[in-house]
């Protein structure tokens, strides 16, 4: 039987390195997935993943379980990715949706073009699709990228994402709405460019 996260965390806090190894192996792919989506390349994603686990271990003593272990992990990973952008000068932290209240989703829809014709799976192989998605994600701000990845890839709820990012669920909703629309538009534009070329 696999011990749950809480048990393993307690064992780690008591100095059990083996318990930490189980946690690393349990979460490495998910951490890497988020990091890859955020930073956009395999090498940097692996570096962020490694740094994330080192930071997790360093801070485990202070983890009191007020949040779930994985939302705590995501918070660390997202912050490391944002630090990574700052160091590399690739910061995109303009949050268009922050100027729009949670009740104003309709207004956001009005300023974002229609995406009716968008079909990302159409006539694209897996590699091409991934390149397009990477480019699309690159166009988003750090917060938008984090929100859409946590929701679409990791399946976190609005509440969990809010906990990770330290914002309200309303902000999560509007960021997610904007990110989806923006992704669809960017992908549509990129595909159109690809067809022209």
């Amino acid at each position, binding site marked *: 039987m696999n011990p749950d996260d809480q048990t393993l965390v307690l064992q780690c806090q008591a100095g059990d390195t083996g318990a930490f190894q189980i946690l690393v192996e349990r979460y490495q792919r998910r951490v890497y*997935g988020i990091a890859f989506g955020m930073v956009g390349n395999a090498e940097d*994603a692996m570096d962020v993943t490694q740094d994330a686990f080192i930071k997790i*271990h360093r801070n485990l003593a202070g983890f009191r379980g007020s949040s779930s272990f994985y939302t705590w992990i995501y918070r660390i990973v997202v912050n490391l990715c944002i630090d990574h952008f700052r160091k590399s000068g690739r910061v995109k932290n303009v949050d268009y949706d922050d100027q729009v209240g949670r009740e104003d989703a309709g207004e956001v829809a009005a300023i974002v073009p229609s995406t009716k014709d968008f079909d990302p799976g159409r006539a694209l192989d897996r590699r091409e699709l991934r390149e397009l998605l990477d480019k699309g994600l690159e166009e988003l701000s750090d917060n938008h990228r984090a929100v859409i990845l946590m929701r679409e890839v990791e399946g976190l709820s609005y509440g969990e994402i809010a906990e990770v990012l330290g914002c309200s669920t309303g902000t999560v909703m509007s960021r997610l*709405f904007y990110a989806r629309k923006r992704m669809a538009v960017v992908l549509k534009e990129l595909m159109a460019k690809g067809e022209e070329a």
Partner: protein
Amino acid sequence: MVTEKDLQRYFDGELSPAKARKVYRELQDDPAGQQQLAEYRQLRSSLGQATKAAAEEANFDHLWTRVKANIKEEDAVRSSSRFSEWLRRYGLVVASLAVALVVGLIVTMQSAGPVSNDCVIESIETGPNALSTIMTIEDPAIAGEETTVIWVTETAADEGEP
């Protein structure tokens, strides 16, 4: 017509069951909403596939080894810095206490003076060639016990004496 906000929450499973049923019913007569929902699904599926593929291609064989090495290094630095911190905090106090202890010992020894036994001379007898002294010494190591010492000192015969 389903609002964008409700559609998103419906898609993300963030509506109450009653509200979700209502949105589902409304979507039956809302082609634009259905189209939007299809786009959401498409994007989720594409992002999921792409990220999953990236994670599958990644090689995690050395990740734990590297993490473990870093943890060990950090632990060593932490232990060393803990000792330095202890020294920084308490070193002066410990050194002061040690100096005080040594000074205290020296002062105590000096004020006590040299260890001496009480000695009572009982009698002194002189003869032509010897001097005998009978004395008792109280031994402080053995309470209540006394030692009687008879000290005989031979004196040299005067030169020229027959």
